[in-house]
Structure formats: structure tokens, C-alpha cells
């Protein structure tokens, strides 16, 4: 049973936005939308998080920062890009320092467009992210022996075929 969908903790980072989406993210935590009822907790700490909720785009200064935060999050993890700036750079796209959306720095799993993205869209995006998370968790949970077998199949197909032929005999 995958507990990760019952207890997704997120870390929120703002790349280069107007903070409008950040305020909408905070609104999700308020009693009106109350994401805590899904077990979602905004820990500010990447080492404790499962979901990397990013707003804003990537610029030359925050490129290494975003990468470093992403690396500190333990597997399984998903990245949810909230707002148009995070998806593609938004209104700041053509600025001299902007590199684009978050996918220029890290692999993004869910895109939530909007300027600013509404809390309902954000929650929807997080729920979609949860299903991606569950798949990743299942992939991680494949037992070691099976993984070894899969690897053997890929790297040494003749050996694997020989083994199954022998087993067949």
C-alpha cells in the first residue's frame, strides 16, 4: 500500500515570479481550501519533502539554487510547476536574465498554468502529481532481484535467452 499519496509533504520555492502564485499557494493552506485534510504539509525543508512545488521561472542566478534544492529531495519526488511563469517564463519570458520555465533546470512532472493559478487548479495539479508519485513509488519498490533480472535482460540478452532455453529443456 502506498502511503506516499496519503502523506505528501511539499516544499515550495519561488524562482522569479511576481509572488501572485505564491499567495495562491498560501491560500490553499487556509481554512477555505484546507489542503491539510489530504495530509499535505508545507515543510520548508527539501530533505523532508515529496513534492517540489515551484512558482516563477528560472533565471541565471537561481538556476544552481533550484538544482541544489531538487537534489536534496529524496526519491520518490515530483515537481509541480505552478503558474505560467513556471511553465514557460510567463510575462518575464523575454527578459535578459530569464532562461525560461522550470523545465530548463529540473524535470517537471505536472504543469499548472494560470496567472495567477487558482487554488482549485493548484489542488488539482497536486492530485495529478500524487498519481505520478504513486507510480514512481511502485517503480522504486520493485524488489532487488527483479531489478537485477531486468538489468540482465537488457545488458546480456544472449545469456538471458540461454538461461530460459536451459530452463525450458
Amino acid at each position, binding site marked *: 500500500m502506498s502511503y506516499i499519496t496519503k502523506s505528501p509533504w511539499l516544499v515550495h*520555492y519561488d524562482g522569479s515570479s511576481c509572488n501572485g502564485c505564491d499567495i495562491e499557494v498560501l491560500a490553499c493552506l487556509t481554512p477555505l481550501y484546507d489542503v491539510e485534510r489530504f495530509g499535505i504539509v508545507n515543510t520548508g*525543508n527539501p*530533505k523532508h519533502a515529496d513534492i517540489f512545488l515551484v512558482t516563477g521561472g528560472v533565471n541565471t542566478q*537561481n538556476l*544552481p*539554487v533550484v538544482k*541544489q*534544492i531538487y537534489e*536534496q529531495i*529524496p526519491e520518490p519526488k515530483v515537481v509541480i510547476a505552478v503558474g505560467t511563469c513556471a511553465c514557460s517564463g510567463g510575462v518575464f519570458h523575454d527578459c535578459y536574465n530569464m532562461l525560461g520555465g522550470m523545465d530548463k533546470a529540473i524535470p517537471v512532472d505536472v504543469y499548472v498554468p494560470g496567472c495567477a493559478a487558482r487554488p482549485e487548479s493548484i489542488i488539482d495539479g497536486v492530485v495529478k502529481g500524487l498519481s505520478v508519485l504513486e507510480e514512481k513509488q511502485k517503480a522504486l519498490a520493485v524488489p532487488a532481484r527483479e531489478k537485477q533480472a531486468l538489468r540482465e535482460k537488457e545488458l546480456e540478452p544472449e545469456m538471458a535467452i540461454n538461461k530460459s532455453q536451459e530452463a525450458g529443456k
Partner: protein
Amino acid sequence: MSLFALLIGVPLIAAFLVFCLRGNGARNVIVPLASAVTMGLSVAAAVKFFGHPEFFKLAAPELPMVIMALDIIAAVVILYYTLVRFKRPWIALLELVQLGAVFWFEKTVGHSIDIAANIAIDNFAMIMVLIVGIIGSLIAVFSLGYMEEFQKEHRDVEDRRPFFFFVIFLFLSAMFGLVISNNLLLMYTCWEITSLCSFLLIGYTQTEEAINNSFKALWMNLLGGMAFAIAIVWLGLEYSTVELSMLVNLGRSSEPVNLAVALLVFCGFTKAAMMPFSGWLLGAMVAPTPTSALLHSSTMVKAGVFLIIKLCPILGANHTGLMTMFVGGATFLFASCAAISQSDGKKVLAYSTISNLGLIVCCAGIGSYEAAWTAIMIIVFHAVAKSLMFLSVGTAEQQLESRNIENFDGMFCSMPRLSLCMIIGICGMFLAPFGMLISKWAAMKAFVDAGHPLLLLVLVFGSSTTLFYWTKWLGKITAFIPAKENLEEGIHGVQWIALRVLSALTIITCILFPGISQYGVIPYLEVTYQTNMDVIARSNLLIMSMMVILLVVLPLRFGKGRKQKQVVTNLAGENSGDNLSYRGAAGQTIPVTLRNWYMEKWFGEAKMKLCGFILCGSCLLIEFAIILGGAFHV
């Protein structure tokens, strides 16, 4: 008896040999040999006399002459330093008055006093012999390596190593004499010799600071010596005895010996650096580390509390007991608080020593069976752990060129074996299940049974503040900073011997705690208090021993387990990659510096000293006024 003659004689002979044969090679042979022999003799003496207390008359008519001669020699040396070398006439006056008093006493009344026993051997004295013999020898051996490095580093300090070792061995000899004497005149002589040794060793580097601090130590200790002398004279005149055991018996039969007891306790206060006389111990930290380890934590200051504990049965509910409790308790609390605001490693250790001595004195002042048990157990554990700590800090100082705790971070990776010794020392000082903690447990029981609520307050707050500064230090050492190089190469083999043996001893004494209590301390208390009981239930002591074993075994699990992916620390995503610096504003790389809390406004040294000095000083004045009034009433 010949065993004790050897015990005193061997270090004495070694002292003269080391002084005369000035070469390094000769010293490197004599010191380990003498230390090993001394250690062996101490263990032999303990094995022979544990459980068999005895009094020796030592009826030699030359003994008073020998004592007087030693007194005069010591006085001459002191006068030489205070009048000829350096101008300190008041201290010279102090010494002359004392010498005069004792001399006059011996000439007029002393030689007609009949002495039943000059030497008293009991379990407590044997415990002290073991401490001096084992720890003292180890420190002497350690000094061989340490002082060699010291002289190399401090080229401006004259190389007086023969003199250094001479004084160390002389001191060991005097300590042995001190703990076995029952004759107060003999004890007084040994006492003065230890004061002299301390003075000579503190001033070893001959810098201005060292000289000033050595004279501070000298006059405070001489003040105590004066009190000792007056006590001897008074006791001899009033009751025609110079024996400690007689004094205790007189006190037990409710004779008004309060004045003598109070004076002796005061003498113990100055030697054990109770407030307001704690300044000399802090100043003594300028001395080379072996001095601090030997004199100013494990042995000489223990002589002060040794005397007070010997007087334990006649303290308690009377004014002397109240004075002892109060001064000890206040010292314990305020020294412990002051240690929080210090970052110099040796100063923290000094304050910790003063604090623990204060606790011992407080227990001694209560005078009950439980309190005496606690006091003796604290002596044992404190001596072992504190000497280990001083030696570790000294070694670290040599390798790191600094003894500021803030510079000890990452020691776990750059000097793993040394930091392990230091960690054992720190844990041994305050953590359950080690011995000091058990002693604090017993102290709580003793204090609550004695019915003094203020003391309870002192104990609980003192324990908490103690926890603070030790854990701070522990955290600093265990900070994991992968080291570029191992800094342990320069440490001599002899230093490792001392460090490792003391670490092992810290752990072994904790595991053997029930045994030490059962076979070492309780027999002494049985004789003294005519009763026998377990202060802490045997089962609890066994649980503690098992926990120590668990703690020793547990680190074997260090580093085992699932493979972990290495990630950087959270520096808001701006970590440079090595955890040691981060990308700051305007493109600068800023190093990560972490500093402990010192809480100067709350626990500042000046504030704590003021509180402690005022409280203890006023207590001393008031209590002495009452006691003197009582004495003259008769």
C-alpha cells in the same frame, strides 16, 4: 609500613635523580621507571590495606625534627622567592608568622604531647593513594612527550625540564605523605610542600602573567596554611593533642572544638579553590597542561576536600557544617553557571573543577553517611575524568595551536582518536550512566534526606547548567567536517599511553562502580559511622553498569546500515558544494562559521563571580564571627 616509606621515598629519589642527571635520555628512562614503580607500589598498598584499617605509631624521636627541618626548608625557599627574587613582602610575612607559630608550638608544648598514632591507614586514604599513584604516574609519563613539544613551541621559555620533573615527583611524594598522616603537624608540612610545588609549577614559564598568578596561588594557599597552623596551636594548647583522629573523637563527644574544625575547613576551602578563593585556580591555568591535570584537578585540590571529608562526622548541624554546606553549594552553582560563558577550554575545565569540588564540600558539610559516600565517589570519578579532559585539551592545544573550544570543530574527523578520548572524558563528567551522574543521584538523595531545601535548589539548577556547557562542547567536537588531513601525527607515544589508559579507566571505574562502592567506600564509612547501608540500591547500580557496557558496545554499530546518498546541507540552495561555504550576495563566497552560545548577559563570569564571592564571603565572615564568639565564651 615499609610500603609507605617506599611510596614516599621512591618519588623523592626519582625527583633528585631527575634534577641531577639533566640529560633528556636519562630523564626518558628514569621517569617511566619511577612512574611504573610508584603505580605498582600504590596498587600493592591498596591491595594490602583495603578492608584492613590500621593506625601506625611510627615512634621515631627524630620525626618532629624531620618535620621542623622540612618546614624550615620550605620556608627558606618561599622567602627566597618572595624577598630575594621578587618583591612580595606581605607574602613573606604570612609565611614567617606561620613558621613562627608552628616553631614556637613545637618548642614549648609540642614535644611533650603524647602521640598515639602518626599514621592512619583506612580505605579512604587508600583510595587517595590509588588516585595519586595511578593518575600521577600517568601524568608524569605524559609530560615527557608534552614538555618536549612545549619547549619546541615556546622557544622563549627557558628549558627547565629537570626542575619541572623534580617538582612533580616531589609533589607526588608530599601527597602520599599527606593522605596517610594522622599527625596534624606532619600533614601541615606536606600541605605546605604541595602549596610550594603548585607555586613553582604555575610560575614555570616565568612570564609576567605566570609569576603574578603563581604568587596569587601562593598567598591564598598560605592563608589556608595560616589557618591550619592556628588550628594546630589552639588544639594543642586546649586539648593536648595533634591528632586528627583525636579531634574527630573530641568533636563526636560534643567537646567545643568548633574553632579548630572551622579553621581546618577554611584551610581546605583555600586549597580546594572555594569561592571567594577561586581566583587562584583560574589563574593557574597559565601553567603547562600536566600541572593543571595533576595539581589543579585530580590531586592537590583533592587534598583540600580530603581534609574536609575526614572531618565529615563532626560537621552537619553545627555552625561549621552550615558554613561548609553553604560555601560549597554556592560555589557549585555559580562556578557551574560561569563555565557556560567561557570558550577557553582550560577555563571551562577550571570552573568545572571548582564546581565539582563545591559539590564535594557541600556533601561533606552535610556530614551524613549518604553524603560522605557521595563525596568520596565524586572524588574518584572526578579525578579520573578531569585529568583525562585536561590531558586531551593539552594535546589538542599543541596540535591545533589553540585551546579555544570554537577551534575544536571537526576534531572528530581530523583527530579521531583524540576526540574519542575527549568524548569519553566529557561523557564521564556528566552523563548517565557514568559515575559522576550516579554521584549526583546520590547527592540528591543525601540532600533531601538532610532536610535543607536551599541545597536542593542549588543542586538541580547546578546540574542543569552543567549539562549545558558539557553538551555544547560535545556538540562542537562531534561536528562532522570531513578533514583534509589527519592532525594526529605529532602526538607522542607516551601521550597516547596516558590518554588511552585514562579513557579505559573512566569506563572501567564506571562499570565497576558497585564493586568500588561495596569494597572500597562502604567499609570506610562502616568504621566511621558505625552503620552500613546502600545509598543507591544495588539493582540500580547494576543497571547503570550494564548501560555503560551498552554504550561501549553501541558505537560498533556506527556506520552500518543501508547505504545513504550523500547530499549537501541546507544553506537555502546556495551551498558551494562542500558544506563549508556558500554563495553570498554580490557573487561573494562566504565561509560557514558556527559558534556556540555563551549567554554573557545571563552567565557572565564577572556577574557569577560577584554573586558567588559576596554570598560565600559573607557566609564565611558571619559563621567565623559566631564560632569565634563561641570559642571565647568559654
